[in-house]
């Protein structure tokens, strides 16, 4: 009885070891890379796009649920100026969510922004939900190839209030659009 059981065990172990047989050569393994670097700076950045992560200059955390990123109280993006922006200016749109826990702790939060040094009108949020912060940027501030926008919240979740991180908004995208 025991001999048969032992044989069975040995057979299963042998099968497993056979499964490893193809790997029984020391080999250098690599994974192909994508080398064509035709990516340009984007005018609109989805925060879940790994390729665009370099345009999220500071204040953004890692991608969550493959869809969005939390920000800190201060965060910055750099965006490519859209066509004709040098003459007509551009429209900044930031799509984000104000979360319930944030307003439970702060009651209100005001988002302000500075585009290439020019102050944009702030906006105050008192209810949780999805919002788009939309402001016109005059042509004088869109003269370079890219525009850097620095955002700031006056009230936010400090580190330790809800979790270990400082938390601001949940941002889905930021973009510069033609006027």
């Amino acid at each position, binding site marked *: 009885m025991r001999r048969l059981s032992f044989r069975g065990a040995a057979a299963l172990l042998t099968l*497993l070891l056979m499964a490893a047989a193809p790997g029984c050569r020391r080999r250098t393994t690599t994974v192909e*890379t994508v080398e064509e670097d035709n990516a340009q700076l984007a005018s609109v950045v989805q925060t879940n796009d*790994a390729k665009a992560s370099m345009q999220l200059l*500071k204040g953004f955390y890692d991608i969550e649920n493959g869809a969005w990123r939390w920000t800190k109280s201060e965060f910055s993006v750099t965006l490519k100026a859209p066509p004709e922006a040098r003459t007509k200016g551009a429209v900044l749109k930031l799509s984000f969510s104000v979360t319930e826990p944030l307003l439970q702790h702060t009651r209100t939060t005001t988002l302000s922004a500075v585009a290439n040094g020019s102050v944009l009108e702030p906006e105050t949020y008192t209810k949780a939900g999805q919002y788009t912060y939309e402001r016109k940027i005059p042509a004088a501030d869109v003269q370079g190839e890219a525009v850097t926008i620095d955002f700031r919240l006056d009230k936010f979740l400090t580190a330790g209030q809800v979790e270990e991180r400082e938390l601001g908004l949940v941002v889905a995208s930021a973009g510069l659009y033609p006027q």
Partner: protein
Amino acid sequence: MTRERALATAAWALPALVCLLVYWPGLRAWFQQDDFAWLGLTSEIHSQRDFWRTMFEPKAQGTIRPWSERAYFMGLYTLFGMDALPFRVVAFATQLLNLFLLSRFTQRLTGSWWAAGGAVLFWTVNPSLGGPMSWSSSYNQLMCTAFLLGALVLFQKYLETDRGAYYWAQMAVFVMGFGALEMNIVYPALAALVALVSRARKVWSTAPMFAISLAYLVFHSMVAVTPTTGPYAKYYDRSIWKTLWHYMYTSFGSPKLAELDLPLWIWMAGIGLPYVLGAALLCYAVRMAWEHRWVALLPAGWFISLIGPVLPLKDHLTEYYLTMPSIALALWMGMGLEWSWRKGFLARALALVLACCYLVAAAISGRSVAQYNYDRSNRVRQLVLGVARAHELHPGKEILLQGVGTELYWSAVNDQPFRLSGFDDVHLTPGSEEHIEAHPELGDVTAFVFPPGATLRALRKNQAVVYTLDGGKLRNITASYKAVAMSQLKDELARRIDAGNAAYGGQLGAGWEPITKGYRWMGQQSEVYLGGPRKEGEKLYLSGFCAALLVEKGPIHLSVSIDGVVFPPSKIEAPDRAFDLSYPLPPGLAGKDKVTVNLSLDRTYIPPDDGRPLGLVFGSLAIR
């Protein structure tokens, strides 16, 4: 085939099949985290002395595991390189052996193949096995289990037959088990429990085992460093009870369901099942004690013996610590189910429902752990092997990784897997540390971040390529990254440099030799320029290596001056060893764009086949 034989086979073969089904992703998992440190051990061996040191020298957490970590990783890496499948096959084969041994152990303990089959099945699906079945660094749990169960089965045979051969064989297996995991120290307690419930007068035969465990404890405390800070620090206080409750509760497996994206009722069932199942098992144990069937109490002793040593680790609660203790739960449920089966319809139905609830909840949880480790290790594989390919395509260039998040950093980059491919000129782009949660107890993210100034210079000179992990492949984004970098990064001196990295060459003054294999020798006097400290109170850190020939005639002395402020010489005497030195920065340097560091040795050496006067090997120099 007789009924008995069929039962004996089914008692381990069916659970073995379930094991393969539940943990299948673990068979295909790649490497991650600590695996790379273990794989890298092979590169430290240059002589027979190195081999013995690498095999048996205690590691930072006080671990000495020559079979389950050193031999396992070094042996398979030497044979198969970065192919993870053989590592996983060995882990699965060990676990199948464990299932076989557990079926034999339980049958001898209870006299029932039904109880044995139940125990093996219940243990197989316990999610505490999810880690060891899908992550090679926790293989030590599986191997230690094999030693413990193997020794116990031999001990049972000794108790049954009185044959000395079995006794000495179990003793040999027990002693060998110390090479798998320190937890092996509790074996005498387990053997004594088995003796007490099987043949009480033979319990004295375990006395030599206790003596061996005591000797190991003394030896271990003499040679291994016991951490007093960090996650492995031990606390002998009331927190032990909280930790015990945590492990008792989570050993049922179902609470893990709460971490998964499942309907609310399943979530609630997962939270509640341990209480219901625990109460049922307690009732069974009380009833057995009332009937003086002491074997039913053995699992309690088993659990306490095996979880006891990790209870003081309140800051390191890890599911895989339950790998061996969870056998207690499985034994209890196996025995309880078998007993209930003989107690009429109601008891049978109740036991069956509870058993099914546990099996389903635990299997889902165990599978989720294996799948999680597979998915994570697969992303690590894409990154590490993708970087290897990028290195082939762009030899000699610095590889900068953009968009590495918290999980990928801590499961791959922090353990420097790229060194296994023979290069280490891989860094994160400036600002990457913003996206990565800090874990100072695990490492310093900033040490891997390439400084802005060096990044700009490398990009301008076409000495760097930038990649990001996108859709399972590394994508070259050098041109678009360069466009952002040129407008955002400042050309400033780095506060931390690798002397052996050409990108930092501009920060080295006189007295340095050319780069050799990622390192650089200093001469008798060498100069370095670093970015000034951000604030007062920071220090200068030097890390490097001292060749044996340099201290052949006695210790050498390194004099350091920072912007003209001279520090007392540091004595270095350990041959062929790394050194780490630090110096408090003089006041008034905070905010300076540049500080000059001068290094001076009282002696150099000239290698016979070289002719150059050489000093220390660097290494990194950093202000932080």
